[in-house]
């Protein structure tokens, strides 16, 4: 690997030049937290001043690569210069480089079986590196309801129509296919808690 000063913005963010805007975002998030001052991952290897240098390079790389105009100009400059060898030469034969969904590469569960239970949702959320509080602010669903969804505590969940809405929001925020998640999960709800009405007027038939 080349010294930091010689690395391109792509190399700094462990991306290839073909990376999409979304991949740039993700890589930036991972890089920023990895080299943050209080990061667990850098503990005991990096001195603070080294980290500061890396952080500055990460911010600069992101500033350029996240802006279409700046990125285009940068790409032109890169292409005009001598062909640069990818800095991550040790990683070059690793097909799972960070450019591919950094938070989920390799940890995606097979989605073939169509089973979406609460535990599965939690595992998928964790694999994508999404904490409950972040999910809560993205979906406007309280953490206790999110917990109830994942723990399948159907008794504390509100009426079915709301659960459906929660699930749709959950799936979208976590990046899952709501059309698959919602029916599969609702089937489980229906089995255990048939037709909880929107207003608790009707008694469940015995």
């Amino acid at each position, binding site marked *: 690997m080349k010294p930091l000063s010689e690395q391109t913005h792509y190399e700094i963010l462990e991306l290839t030049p073909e990376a999409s805007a979304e991949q740039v975002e993700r890589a930036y998030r991972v890089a920023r937290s990895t080299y943050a001052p209080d990061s*667990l991952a850098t503990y005991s290897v990096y001195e603070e001043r080294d980290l500061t240098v890396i952080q500055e390079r990460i911010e600069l790389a992101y500033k350029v690569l996240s802006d279409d105009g700046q990125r285009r100009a940068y790409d032109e400059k890169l292409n005009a210069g001598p062909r640069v060898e990818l800095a991550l030469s040790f990683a070059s034969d690793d097909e799972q480089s960070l450019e591919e969904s950094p938070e989920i590469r390799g*940890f995606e569960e097979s989605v073939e079986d169509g089973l979406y239970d609460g535990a599965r949702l939690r595992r998928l959320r964790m694999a994508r590196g999404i*904490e409950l509080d972040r999910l809560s602010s993205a979906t406007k669903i309280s953490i206790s309801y999110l917990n109830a969804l994942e723990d399948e505590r159907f008794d504390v969940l509100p009426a079915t129509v709301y659960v459906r809405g929660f699930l749709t929001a959950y799936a979208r925020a976590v990046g899952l296919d709501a059309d698959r998640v919602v029916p599969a999960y609702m089937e489980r709800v229906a089995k255990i808690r048939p037709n909880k009405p929107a207003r608790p007027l009707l008694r469940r038939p015995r």
Partner: protein
Amino acid sequence: MKRAVRSASTEATPNSSDGPRPRLIAVGGGKGGVGKTFLAANLAITLARAGYRVIAIDTDVEGPNLHTLVGVKNPARTLADFIAGRETNLLRLIVATPTENLGLIAATQGNLAGAAPEAQRRAELLAALRRLPCDFVIVDCGAGAHAATLDYFLVSDDGLIVVHPEPTSVENAYTFVRAAFYRRMQAALQKHDVRALVREAMDQRNARGIKTPLDLLREVEQMDPEEGQRFVETMRRFRPRVVVNEVATAEDVKLGFSISSVCRRFFGIDADYIGYLNRDAAVREAVKQRRSLLDIAPDGDAAVYLRRIARKLAEGVPLPSEEAAS
């Protein structure tokens, strides 16, 4: 059926070099108490239940536990017999476990004095592991970064580094990676002066200011381009794999990616993030009951994560049944 591995093995000769070699998977990582033995035992059981022939070996001579976690109470024979030279055939040390297809070579018990094998004996042991008649050999390494531990780790096809999401564990993991890397480099490089340079670099406060393998590479390249090439080759082939154990949050899950990134950027070492296990009551229960996680909570998160790691390790390794069919 329980004795499938052992009976098959006692029939084979230890020197039979024909046929496919087993895949060696070492479970290490520096810090004690991060779940190395638990992972080794449960990976071995998972692979065995999938239909692979597996032998688990406990090399943690200072604190052997593996036998307990694979369900063997008092192993009749142990590695101590091999180390002491009482037994030269490793196959005779394999004891059956309650899991079909899983054999165990337990570590020394009851003999605390001079338990660690001498270098020569260790080399013989490492060579013998390669000839074991099975699909996987799972090596449970002890804590620390002693020469013996590093050698078990380095001789393996896959070296797993188990990390807890806490500073002490991360620190020890890096120490372990660094130590393993330098040890491998020492073995790979040929010229006397270059090897001396590597030895010098192993001291973190060396006069040349070499802090990382990447710094060292630059020095080696200057000294001897041919050795520099060898260095790069060795570096490329050194690929430990990271497992984060006891994750409780999504942040903990991401730690593995961050460790991978730091390994690449700081050390120039590719350390794939192969998976994680969550902090799970079922894990504690499994240890307490001395049973496999797959028995305690077969559909729980921890079992799902465990199977995921096992699947990755088994990629490209045909099952004996598949081999027979083809």
